[in-house]
């Protein structure tokens, strides 16, 4: 649920990084936090377990400048990926305007990706939103691991498993090292703001 403030000429919008556990959602936000420090006025908020896993969510507000005369303020969130935190994931999705689905490219994680995407669709439906309509970008993460000889899912398989019907934009990325992390974020921000365009004219 984006907020448009006509008095301050400001737009606030919520983007959620979703995906299976240990897929790199938090690492995406950590990279953005380091890379765009000058545009972020606060500390990144994380609610973790003692084992350093996301318990509730990570939160990072970022100002991206002006579009059509409006200051654009994007609130980036992650969900906890572990299967047992389904109700928490649903809470974080409340009012979401755009989604980055961070898929794990590890060959052994193929099933987890599919199950997580199914849970995303179900959770969006609980807010009467359709995964077919909401701005969505796929990020196939951990592509750098191929250099270490670790078996990865071919991008064609990931596309077939996850994106054959949705046909959303996708990026091959490494959240740890940085390639395509910023591009993923820029794409989802553009798509999300574009979905608000009729309200900003």
């Amino acid at each position: 649920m984006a907020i448009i403030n006509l008095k301050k000429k400001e737009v606030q919008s919520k983007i959620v990084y979703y995906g299976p556990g240990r897929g790199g959602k938090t690492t995406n936000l950590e990279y953005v936090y380091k890379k765009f420090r000058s545009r972020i006025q606060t500390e990144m908020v994380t609610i973790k377990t003692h084992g350093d896993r996301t318990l509730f969510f990570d939160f990072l507000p970022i100002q991206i400048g002006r579009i059509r005369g409006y200051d654009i303020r994007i609130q980036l969130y992650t969900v906890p990926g572990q299967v047992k935190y389904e109700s928490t994931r649903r809470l974080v999705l409340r009012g979401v305007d755009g989604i980055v689905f961070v898929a794990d490219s590890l060959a052994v994680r193929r099933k987890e990706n599919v199950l997580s995407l199914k849970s995303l669709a179900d959770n969006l439906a609980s807010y009467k939103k359709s995964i077919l309509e909401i701005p969505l970008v796929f990020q196939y993460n951990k592509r750098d691991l191929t250099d270490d000889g670790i078996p990865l899912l071919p991008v064609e398989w990931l596309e077939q498993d996850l994106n054959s019907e949705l046909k959303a934009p996708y990026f091959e990325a490494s959240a740890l090292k940085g390639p395509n992390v910023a591009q993923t974020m820029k794409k989802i921000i553009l798509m999300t703001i574009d979905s608000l365009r009729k309200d900003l004219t």
Partner: protein
Amino acid sequence: MDEQYISDADGQRTYIFTPEQLSEIEAVLAEDLLDVGVHSVTLIDMAGNIISTMDNGDNKHDLYSLAALAAGNFGAVSTMASLIGEEEFSLLFHKGNKENIHFSKVTDEFLLITIFGREVSLGFLRLKVAEATEKLVIILKPGS
């Protein structure tokens, strides 16, 4: 600019607040709450976005993080309530040494966060929050 309050864009709900609405909201927050001595008051939506915030000039809180956490906290507590068969908990309040924080649902979509010190009693604060909430509900009503 379309002056509509809520629009549906591709199935999405967008809340558009006019300068007049925001001025009315600020007047309620200032007169009903700041003037009785609260330190800061913030109206947010349940997604964690800030609609309006007012303070007494002494506060340097990170309000965006506070709003995100408050919305998450409120959602978590509401889910806990339903798990034990309650519709909702009527009092959401955290007491600190110097600052206290009070959460109050305005409508299903909006939440009021009030930060106050020892000089304001919880009972009085709840009374004033209830008064402010009644006014905010009217201002926030679609088409108002």
